[in-house]
């Protein structure tokens, strides 16, 4: 993600304001051009099926990604030990993000991704149901490109949570994302 304390601060301000549905004054300036890549946070009416669309996305370093809640209540949360002891599945040195719950339809959350590599993320209330997504920034490297249990037995990983089976099955492969650039869930739903 973007480095530099001032830029981090401005970006963080934009994130908070955007997440609250308030005019993103800082974010507007930061997101001036090119426009953010949009990822929709979806659900059927019953809350039985939930998904990110696209579920896989390739972007260049420095791209801002914007999640928008369409239905239901969702989060976009990076796989990172700072997020409730989830395993590390974003590049070393990249800052984790957690949108918090986006309750109202239309609520958005922006993250600018600058460190190349694979970024895996999940929806907090729906991870166990397999609502996850993957972004490849520039190249398909880093912890997110490794097998899900790569960290087992490594020092300092005590307490990390394993990725649920439904989530493991949902991730598109890095190779597919590199080949197709944008991967949608099958039929618009998982």
């Amino acid at each position: 993600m973007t480095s530099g304390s001032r830029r981090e601060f401005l970006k963080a301000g934009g994130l908070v304001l955007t997440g609250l549905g308030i005019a993103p004054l800082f974010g507007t300036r930061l997101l001036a051009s090119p426009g953010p890549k949009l990822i929709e946070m979806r659900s059927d009416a019953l809350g039985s099926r939930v998904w990110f669309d696209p579920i896989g996305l390739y972007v260049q370093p420095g791209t801002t990604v914007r999640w928008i809640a369409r239905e239901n209540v969702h989060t976009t949360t990076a796989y990172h030990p700072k997020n409730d002891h989830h395993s590390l599945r974003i590049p070393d040195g990249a800052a984790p993000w957690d949108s918090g719950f986006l309750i109202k339809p239309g609520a958005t959350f922006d993250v600018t991704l600058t460190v190349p590599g694979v970024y895996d993320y999940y929806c907090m209330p729906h991870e166990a149901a397999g609502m996850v997504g993957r972004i490849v920034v520039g190249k398909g490297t880093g912890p997110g490109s490794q097998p899900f249990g790569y960290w087992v037995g490594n020092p300092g990983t005590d307490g990390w949570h394993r990725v649920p089976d439904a989530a493991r099955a949902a991730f598109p492969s890095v190779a597919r994302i590199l080949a197709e650039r944008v991967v949608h869930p099958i039929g618009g739903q998982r």
Partner: protein
Amino acid sequence: MKGLALATVVTALGIGIFTLPDVAAAQRESPLPVASRMHPDSSTAPLQEPPGGKYKKVSTLVPLPDFIPGLGTLYVDPATLPAGPFLAYDHQGHLVSSIYMIPLKDMNAQKAFSGLKIAHAPADHVDIVYNAGHPGVAEPHYHITVWYVSAQRAAQLAK
């Protein structure tokens, strides 16, 4: 799992066997016939929001909107999570359903849920619907909903 599901449904349908504490108190204090006092469609004395007692509005416990489309305004005794019952009220504050939320992992583990409370109100129908999760029950589970209103009225909770 089949046994559990059946037991759960039977429990959920055990209308009149288990009584919400506040409902029981209302019954003792009111001179009205039970049917007119307790039926949520009744214009005389419907079960009104808030339920009181140990029930807390769900939106004050977890990040959810006050009114959840399709369900209503929910209240739950936190000590009963995740099963509930969750008491659901419509926009007018009338009780419309009791909802039981049963995690799939508990079903697969053949866990029993017995003695679940239910309102003293005539049930119209029951829905059993899979839910992928939400704040408060952040895992796949089933909503077993005992509706005290018609399907037509339940549909009006969509917005």
